[in-house]
């Protein structure tokens, strides 16, 4: 492939060009309710050529790999139509590297019958758990992706990216009330990461049943503690997206808001994005422009100190490369994305954090989050009221919303118990690129004056 890509790139007549080809083999087993919903496999092959000319981009995406030089020429012609300004492109040392998958138990060697039996067992556990369990969903999927990347500056990277993931959902019903419980699992290191999930399947079913009896939280302003998974989602949604410099680099007002050196939180607040973190869901050795990933402090001791860059945004803003240009699929060019984002561990034990709260909400795990720059909203899977310094009754429909700048300032306690959200399907969406694998992590944190949505 190296020779083919290098030869194709010779057809370019612009300032910079690169080409990425992917081959993705995917197998899945889905149960929904008592029935096997779908079992199958797919193979997706294709690529993208990017050409950069006078600040304008031309892209050509394709499934047909036959005539790569033609795709390069197509992208170049398009770039020349677009470019009329100045190219900004941060230099990085060319690399040549091969990254092989390392699997404890290779899912490609596991017969489909075994994958089906595995999903079926988890599904049976959920359906048999309790009479209120109405239905279930179990989704197993594995992906073996091979990427080939070359650019006109001499970089060539070949990388295998395996992924196995599992989602189990229990749906319980009582009259018109329907509640869900879920668990996720999996990993980049092989099939064993989805085995021995029986306990988790049971606990998903149990949570759905318990939630049937839980009242919805009543809307209002509370002192909120978020658990580690939810802290991860909050960090990603509320702050992380603001650090993606493609929102900032051509936007003077955003640059003013996100001025490096500005205080965003207390001295204890550290927010980090680390694409080099071993075993993280968003870990790569290089990003999709051949830039090595690294540990990037975004907030250090409460002060904004850095942001996430592609080669274009780094050059435009005169800031160091961070290795954050990523793409979800060859049909999309890489854009600035997070990798593994987290609030770093603080000093306060959970018991200490909760003891002074008379009335509050302990929000646990996440079933989604969304942001529009300063505004964010995210939904907890469930929550508990906090009463007189104790975790009290279970509540449902806990949705947190707010203004990120105020909310970060309102974090007054950071836990000593950093943890990462487990693997599972899904990921981050930005523009039309979804789902991208990202790592979400953090300790318990306490937020003062947080708006919790719900009927009053």
């Amino acid at each position, binding site marked *: 492939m190296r020779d083919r890509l290098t030869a194709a790139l010779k057809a370019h007549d612009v300032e910079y060009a690169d080409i990425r080809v992917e081959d993705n083999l995917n197998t899945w087993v889905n149960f*929904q*309710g008592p*029935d*096997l*919903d*779908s*079992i*199958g*496999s*797919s*193979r*997706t092959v294709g690529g993208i050529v990017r050409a950069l000319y006078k600040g*304008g*981009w*031309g*892209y*050509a*995406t394709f*499934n*047909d790999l036959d005539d790569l030089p033609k795709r390069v020429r*197509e*992208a170049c012609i*398009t770039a020349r*139509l*677009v470019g009329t*300004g100045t190219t900004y492109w941060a230099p990085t040392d060319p690399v040549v590297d091969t990254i092989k998958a390392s699997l404890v138990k290779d899912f490609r060697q596991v017969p*489909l*019958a075994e994958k*089906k039996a595995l999903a079926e067992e988890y599904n049976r556990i959920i359906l048999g758990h309790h009479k209120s369990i109405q*239905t279930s969903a179990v989704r197993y999927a594995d992906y073996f992706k091979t990427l080939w990347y070359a650019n006109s500056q001499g970089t060539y990277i070949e990388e295998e990216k395996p992924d196995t993931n599992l989602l189990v959902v229990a749906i319980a*019903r009582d009259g*018109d009330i*329907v509640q869900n419980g879920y668990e996720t699992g999996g990993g980049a290191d092989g099939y064993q990461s989805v085995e021995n999930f029986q306990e988790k399947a049971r606990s998903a079913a149990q949570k759905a049943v318990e939630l049937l009896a839980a009242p*919805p939280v009543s809307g*209002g302003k509370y002192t909120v503690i978020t658990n580690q998974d939810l802290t991860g989602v909050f960090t990603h949604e509320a702050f992380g997206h603001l650090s993606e410099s493609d929102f900032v680099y*051509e*936007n003077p*007002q*955003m640059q003013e*808001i996100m001025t490096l050196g500005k205080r965003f939180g207390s001295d204890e607040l550290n927010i980090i994005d680390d694409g080099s973190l071993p075993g993280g869901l968003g870990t790569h050795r290089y990003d999709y422009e051949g830039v090595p990933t690294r540990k990037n402090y975004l907030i250090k001791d409460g002060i904004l100190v850095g942001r996430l860059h592609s080669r274009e945004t780094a050059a435009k803003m005169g800031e160091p490369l961070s290795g954050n240009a990523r793409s979800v699929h060859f*049909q999309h060019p890489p854009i600035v994305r997070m990798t593994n984002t987290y609030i770093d561990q603080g000093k306060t034990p959970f018991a200490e954090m909760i003891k002074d709260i008379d009335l509050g909400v302990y929000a646990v795990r996440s079933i*989604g989050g*969304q*942001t*529009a*720059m*300063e*505004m964010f*909203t*995210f*939904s907890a899977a469930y929550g508990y009221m906090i009463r007189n310094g104790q975790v009290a009754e279970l509540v449902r429909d806990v*949705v947190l*919303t*707010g*203004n990120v700048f105020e909310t970060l300032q309102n974090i007054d306690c950071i836990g000593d118990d950093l943890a990462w959200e487990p693997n599972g399907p899904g990921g981050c969406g930005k523009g039309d690129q979804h789902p991208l694998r990202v790592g979400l992590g953090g300790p318990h944190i306490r937020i003062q004056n947080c*708006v919790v*949505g*719900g*009927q*009053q």
Partner: protein
Amino acid sequence: MIVQEIVAKALEKAQAAQAVMVSQETSAVDFENDRLKSAESSQRTKIDLKVIVDGKVGISSTTDPRDVEGVVQRALEAAQFGSPAHFELPEPQALNPVEIFDPAILPLEKPEMIRMGQQMMDMVKSYNPEILAGAAVNKNLYKVEYANSRGASYSAEHTDFNVGAAGQLVRGTDILFAGHGIGQKKRAVDTEAIAAQAIEYFHLAEEIAPIESGEMPVIFTPSGLAALLLSLALAVNGKNVYLGASPLRDKLGQQIASPSLTIVDDPFVPYGPRTSAFDDEGVPRQVTPLVEKGVLRNFIYDLDTAGRAGAKPTGHGSERRLTNLVIEPGQTPYAEMLRGVEKGLLVHEFLGLGQGNPINGEFSVNVFLGYKIEHGKLVGRVKDVMLAGNAFDAIKDITAISQEREWVSGPWAWFNGLIPHVQVGKLSVTAK
């Protein structure tokens, strides 16, 4: 056709088979942050195969039309462990004629698409130079070929054309996004009207209007109605009905909404964004009334779910996707609807839609773009406001539907349809 070749190959081992191939060519131009940022040419091919072996279903797909052997072999393997087929593939049937191809789109080249985008962006900039403007124009030509082992074989060529303008305005720490776009199957599109609509959203948002928490009347814009339609779409999905997860599962023929509400899924709207003659299972599309004068009329079913549930397939494809949702216009002119609200909220876009428990109807969303109504007038944009309620309660409490309707469409829309403004009597609004 390749699809017939694949079906023939699969029938060497399978008792039944169907294949669908979609081939498409796309051109797109994209403006971001006040300038033309990129343009793209894209070629895509995808083949999906479904086989039935000894009564069990296996599926596979590939992007490589030369990989006939591979795609057939993987589908056959999956069928060994597949779920039992509760259906037969459909026989050849007569298809409704549809308008889905506009030859005027073919000669449209990137320089003209760039000119259209530039024009929309210039309009937004001349309204307010501080807005960071963006625009997107793309055209898509695609061919769908279907064949199955009962001799059904269809082919259709579509043209898609999507045009949108948007912008971002930052004042202090306040950030406002707004935009408007249209997706359809014909070229004739009024770029000035699209830009004007995007500008209108900015214009109305110039002032920020504080609002107090409480229950109040809420008007949903056509695109804002997604907050209610999302739950309805999940609840009429035959799979959710069959699995018992839909709260409407036993409500066919019953009054579930205000008598003023009629919603029809119409795949035959000329040049509509989701118009087509057959689905990916070879089932002819059909007009499906979902709600008639408030009465629930139909659920939507794919072949297999229909077979399991003892219902008829409705031509919504294996994924049971709605096509063009058409809501009957109401009696009230929009201006009059607005005038009738003493204190309330107009909601257009949300953050967090679809989170939580949408099939139950419950929603609790951040109003991303919404306007306060005071003494019958829009007085400014609201901020940090949550709207909460239950979609199934809300559709019973519809107090007015506008005479005017707008298309909600394009790749950026939650759903595609011809939709009026809809007023709901009372919903809970939480302001910070």
